[in-house]
């Protein structure tokens, strides 16, 4: 049985052209679910939204910068405020009601249970 997770770009309307940054992420698969770990440093627990629309899983998040107005920049390797966006096309049926997400140390863990109908079945040989 083939299961597919695809990451895809969804065209945005001109008015919505926010400068998004794609976050680093990993996908691991178990027997019954996928886990997507999205690295979102600086994003508070309630700073991310996870949306499933059809087969499209979208994660958007904005960082909360610890920088203060009085701080002068000496050296910068990443933007103090970043809006992340990751869109994954799910080519495997998942149990939408069973999707869970938790955030820990700037990593969002999204668990996607594989729908019963998509799980492999053992077929008895008569």
């Amino acid at each position: 049985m083939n299961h597919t997770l695809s990451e895809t770009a969804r065209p945005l309307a001109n008015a919505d052209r926010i400068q998004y940054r794609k976050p680093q992420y990993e996908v691991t698969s178990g027997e019954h679910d996928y886990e997507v770990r999205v690295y979102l440093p600086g994003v508070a627990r309630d700073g991310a939204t996870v949306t499933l629309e059809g087969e499209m899983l979208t994660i958007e998040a904005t960082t909360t910068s610890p920088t203060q107005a009085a701080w002068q920049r000496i050296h910068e390797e990443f933007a103090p405020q970043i809006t992340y966006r990751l869109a994954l096309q799910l080519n495997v049926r998942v149990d939408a009601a069973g999707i869970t997400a938790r955030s820990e140390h700037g990593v969002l863990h999204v668990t996607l249970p594989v729908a019963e109908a998509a799980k492999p079945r053992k077929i008895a040989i008569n």
Partner: protein
Amino acid sequence: MKLIKYEPMPMTPWADLDRLFGTTLGELSRWAGFPGWPGEGDIRVNVYQDAAAYHVVAELPGYSRDQIGLELENAVLTIRAERTQGEGDNARTWRVSRSLTIDEAVQADAVTAKLEHGLLTVTLPKAEDRKARQITVG
């Protein structure tokens, strides 16, 4: 399940596209969306200052406080972090580090650090004689 990365499709300015294909079920596998990170290597940092201190902000997503080490020696600030994910044969360890030379004198015994949502902020108070002072014109 095996996940194989295909060549990325043409990128737009605000998003890009990769594809991951699963082939067989039951085998634990993983795919990092960006090779080399957040695994081995450097830590990205921003450095700021105000009148009283230098502030180093470092990206360390996934690390808890007890997995991060800080050292200030001979004007070099070193941030190290290590974590292990999974168990047994599936265990995977990440080690990252970054050293920064602090040119200006700081109060080494007053350095503080705070970890919040995967961002480490290290505050290095300036030595008294380096602090900005307002001078009243007489």
